[in-house]
C-alpha cells in the first residue's frame, strides 16, 4: 500500500553511493594501508615503526599539548564573547560579529601568515621597534588556533544562550540572586553541554589542523606536519596512513563524546517567551568589553597585516605600496584562484543536491535505514581533512577509478565536499524538520506524489537551509587546505595551496596577495548568501 508518509527511499541511492565511494572507500583504504606492507600482506610493522623515530611520539605529545592548551584558552574566551553578544549592553556588537567572521573567510594559514608577518623574526613589530620577536612554535600555534576556533565556540554557546528565556532570570532575581549568582546558577548550568561540545570541537580541529602548523609551527613539529612530510617529503604512504589512523583515533573519540553530550542537552523551552534585555551593569560590560577586545584585536590585526603585506613591494625590506603583487607579481597568475572558484562551485552544487536528497530521503525512513545513514552522514566530522585527502590519494591514484578522477577538478571537489559533509547535512536536516507533517498529507490527499511533496511542501521550508548549505560548502572549499593538500598537481593548483607554497619559499607578499583573493572571494560569497536569504525572507511567506 502506498501512502504519503511512505519513505522515498530511492532518494537515498545517490547520496549513499557517494558516501560509500568518496568517503568510506578512501577511509578504508587508509586503514588498510596502515596494516599492510608494500607487498600487500598484513603487518603491524607500521605501528611499531612509530616508536623507532623519537620524533613521532614527541610530535604526538606536542599535538596533544597544543590541543589541550588551545581548548583551555578558546572556550573561556568564546564564552566571554558570547556573553558580550547576548548578556551585555556593550555597544558595537555588530563589530564583534563582523570580526568573528574573519577566521571563517580565511584559510587557517592566513591567520598564521598574519601572525608571522606581524610577530615573526622579520615581522612588522621587529622592523618598526627593533624588538626581537620570534612567534614560531608553541605560542604562535596557540594564538593562531585559538583565534581560528573562537567563532565556532561563540556560535555554539550563543545558540544555547538564546534558548534560555528571560523568566529564569526574573525568577532568580526575584529570589534575590546577584547578577554573578545568576550567571552561576542560571546561565552556566544551561551551557554545560554547549561548552562541552565546543571544547571537543576546538580540540579536534586543533589536533588535526594543518594550515597553522605549516606556517607558524616552525621547528615545533606536530602530527599533521609529520604526516605531510612522510607523504610529500619521503613518499612513505604506509607511514602517512599509519599516522593518519593515529590522528583519526582521538578525533573519532571526541566526536563520539560530543554526540553523547548533544544527546543529553536539553533542547530548551518549548515556549521561548520574552527575550532577555540585560540589565545595566558597568563592571560586567567593562570586563566583557576588555576580553572581546583582547580576543578580536589580534584577529583583525592579523588579517589587516596580510592585506597590508599584499600591497608592499618586497616584504619586509621594501615596504613601498604597490599593486604589483596583484597584477604582474603573481607567479601563477589568477589560475589557482580560478581553479579554486571552480572547485568550490562544483563542490557546492553537487553537495547541496546530494545532501538535500539525503535529508529528504531520511525524513520518513524506517529506523533501520535512518540510524546507520544518519551516522554515516555525520561521520565525516570526525575525519581530519588530511586523513581523507590521503585516502583519496591512496584510493584514486591507482585502480580502476584513477583514470577518471585523479588530478581532475572533480576529485578535489568531492574531497572538499565530503570533508564538510556532516555540517552541511546537519544544517539541511534542521531545515527539513520545519516542514509540517500535515503538508505531506495535504499533498497526498490532493493527489500528489513524492515529487509534489518535495516541490510544494518541502522546498518552501528548506530553501533557506539549502542556500546556506550551498554557500557554506562554497566558502569552506575556497579556504580548505588540509583536505586538498595531497591532491593538487602541477596542472591543478589551488589558491590556498599556492599561499602555502609561496610562504614556504619566502614570497610572503605574493602569498598574501593570493590569500587576500581567497578572503575576498569568500567574503563575496558570504555577502551573496546574506543578500539572497534576505530577499527570500522578504519575498516568501514561510515563517
Amino acid at each position: 500500500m502506498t501512502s504519503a508518509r511512505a519513505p522515498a527511499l530511492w532518494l537515498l541511492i545517490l547520496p549513499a553511493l557517494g558516501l560509500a565511494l568518496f568517503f568510506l572507500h578512501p577511509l578504508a583504504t587508509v586503514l588498510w594501508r596502515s596494516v599492510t606492507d608494500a607487498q600487500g600482506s598484513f603487518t603491524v610493522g607500521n605501528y611499531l615503526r612509530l616508536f623507532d623515530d623519537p620524533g613521532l611520539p614527541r610530535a604526538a605529545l606536542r599535538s596533544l599539548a597544543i590541543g589541550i592548551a588551545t581548548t583551555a584558552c578558546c572556550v573561556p574566551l568564546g564564552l566571554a564573547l558570547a556573553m558580550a553578544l547576548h548578556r551585555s549592553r556593550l555597544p558595537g556588537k555588530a563589530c564583534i560579529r563582523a570580526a568573528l567572521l574573519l577566521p571563517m573567510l580565511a584559510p587557517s594559514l592566513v591567520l598564521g601568515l598574519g601572525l608571522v608577518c606581524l610577530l615573526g623574526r622579520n615581522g612588522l613589530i621587529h622592523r618598526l621597534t627593533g624588538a626581537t620577536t620570534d612567534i614560531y612554535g608553541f605560542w604562535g600555534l596557540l594564538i593562531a588556533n585559538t583565534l581560528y576556533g573562537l567563532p565556532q565556540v561563540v556560535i555554539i554557546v550563543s545558540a544555547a544562550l538564546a534558548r534560555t528565556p528571560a523568566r529564569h532570570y526574573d525568577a532568580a532575581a526575584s529570589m534575590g540572586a546577584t547578577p554573578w549568582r545568576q550567571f552561576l546558577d542560571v546561565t552556566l548550568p544551561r551551557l554545560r553541554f554547549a561548552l562541552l561540545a565546543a571544547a571537543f570541537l576546538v580540540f579536534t580541529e586543533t589536533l588535526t589542523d594543518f594550515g597553522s602548523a605549516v606556517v607558524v609551527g616552525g621547528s615545533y613539529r606536530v602530527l599533521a606536519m609529520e604526516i605531510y612530510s612522510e607523504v610529500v617529503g619521503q613518499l612513505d604512504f604506509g607511514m602517512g596512513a599509519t599516522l593518519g589512523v593515529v590522528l583519526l583515533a582521538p578525533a573519532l573519540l571526541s566526536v563520539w563524546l560530543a554526540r553523547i553530550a548533544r544527546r543529553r542537552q536539553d533542547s530548551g523551552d518549548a515556549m521561548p517567551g520574552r527575550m532577555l534585555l540585560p540589565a545595566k551593569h558597568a563592571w560586567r560590560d567593562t570586563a566583557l568589553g576588555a576580553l572581546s577586545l583582547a580576543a578580536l584585536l589580534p584577529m583583525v590585526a592579523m588579517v589587516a597585516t596580510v592585506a597590508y603585506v599584499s600591497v608592499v613591494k618586497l616584504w619586509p625590506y621594501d615596504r613601498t605600496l604597490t599593486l604589483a603583487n596583484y597584477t604582474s607579481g603573481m607567479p601563477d597568475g589568477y589560475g589557482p584562484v580560478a581553479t579554486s572558484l571552480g572547485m568550490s562551485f562544483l563542490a557546492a552544487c553537487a553537495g547541496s543536491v546530494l545532501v538535500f536528497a539525503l535529508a529528504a530521503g531520511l525524513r520518513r525512513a524506517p529506523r533501520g535505514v535512518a540510524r546507520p545513514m544518519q551516522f554515516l552522514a555525520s561521520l565525516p566530522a570526525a575525519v581530519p581533512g588530511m586523513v581523507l585527502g590521503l585516502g583519496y590519494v591512496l584510493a584514486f591514484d591507482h585502480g580502476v577509478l584513477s583514470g577518471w578522477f585523479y588530478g581532475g577538478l572533480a576529485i578535489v571537489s568531492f574531497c572538499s565536499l565530503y570533508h564538510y559533509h556532516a555540517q552541511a547535512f546537519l544544517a539541511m536536516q534542521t531545515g527539513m524538520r520545519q516542514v509540517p507533517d500535515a503538508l505531506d498529507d495535504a499533498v497526498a490527499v490532493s493527489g500528489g506524489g513524492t515529487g509534489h511533496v518535495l516541490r510544494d511542501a518541502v522546498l518552501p521550508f528548506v530553501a533557506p537551509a539549502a542556500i546556506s548549505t550551498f554557500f557554506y560548502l562554497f566558502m569552506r572549499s575556497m579556504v580548505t587546505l588540509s583536505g586538498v593538500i595531497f591532491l593538487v598537481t602541477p596542472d591543478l593548483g589551488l589558491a590556498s595551496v599556492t599561499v602555502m607554497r609561496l610562504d614556504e619559499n619566502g614570497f610572503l607578499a605574493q602569498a598574501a596577495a593570493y590569500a587576500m583573493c581567497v578572503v575576498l572571494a569568500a567574503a563575496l560569497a558570504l555577502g551573496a548568501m546574506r543578500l539572497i536569504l534576505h530577499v527570500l525572507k522578504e519575498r516568501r511567506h514561510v515563517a
Partner: protein
Amino acid sequence: MHLRIDDIAKSWDGHTVLDAVSFSARENEFVCLLGPSGCGKTTLLRIVAGLTAPDAGRIALAGRDITTLPARERRMGLVFQAYSLFPDMTAAANVGYPMRLRRESPAKIAARCSELLERVGLGGLGSRFPDELSGGQQQRVALARALATEPAMLLLDEPLSALDPAIRGQLRSEIRLLQRALGIPTIMVTHDQEEALAMADTIVCMNHGRIEQIGTPRDLYERPRSRFVAEFVGRANLLPTAFVRDTMPGFLERRPPGGEATYEFCLRPEDVLVQSDAHGEAVVEDFVFLGNLARVTVSWRGRRLLAELRGSSTLARGDAVSVDAMRGAWVCA
C-alpha cells in the same frame, strides 16, 4: 450505507491503537469520532483517508472496497488541525492545488476557486498568502481546498481546536451549514464533547482503541451505556446501586438485572433538584455562581453530588437543603 468500516485494527510497535473497530455512515450524515487523546480516533480517520494502512479489516465506500486504494485516488477532502496550507501559495492557489494536480483547465480552476472561496466567506481574499490570514480564515481556505475536487467524503481532523473560542463557535456552525447544504458525508475527529454534541448527527465515542457507544448526541447524553461515556460526555454523578436503593428507590425499577457492582446510576447535574430546607439532610459544600446558572456541590448521606441550578439562587455554603432527582440512566460500571 455510504461508508462501511469493518473490523479495522492497527497497532504500532506492539501497542494496539485500534481494536476491531466497525461503524458506518449514511449519505449526508455528519459523524463525530469523539474520545480522549490516544483513543485511536485520528488513526481511524487517517486510515479512512488512506494516509495510514490498517493491519486488518475492510473499508468500503459506496459499495466499493477501497482498503488498499492509495490516498490520492480516494477522493477524500481532508482538513487538518493547522499548518496544512502551502505557505508559498496564495489562498486561491491553495484551493486550486488539488485541481492543478488533476490537470484541470486554468479557467475551470479559477472559476471553481472563486466559487469555493465565496462559499466559505472569503470572497475577495484569494490573493492573500496564509501568513496574511487569521487562523479562522486559514481553516476556511483549508475547507475550501478539501471541497475543491468534489470529494466523496469530507474528513475533518480537529479542525477547530487550534482556534480562539469565539471563532471556534462561529466556524462550527458554518461548517455544519455548509455540510448540510452540500449534503456531503462527513467524519470529524474531536476531543471536545461540546463540539461533538453541537455538530454531529451521530457520535462514535471511542476509548482505548475501541468504540464505547454509537448514537445520536441525545442518546449519548441521556442514555450513556458506560461509565466512560457518562463521564466523557457532559458531567455526571455516578452513584452505586446501594446508594440509590437507600435514597431514590424509585429508580431501581428500570435497573437491568445484574450483580450489585455491574451497574451504576448516572445522574446529570441539571437533574438534581436542590431546595433550601431547614430540615433537609444535605448541606451545601460549595457554590459557584456562573451567571445564568449556579453549580452547587452538596454533601448528602456521605456522598457528594454536583447539581446545576437555573436562574438566580440564594443558596450559600453551609445551608441545609433537601435533594431529589428527576431522572437518570443506568450505565455499566
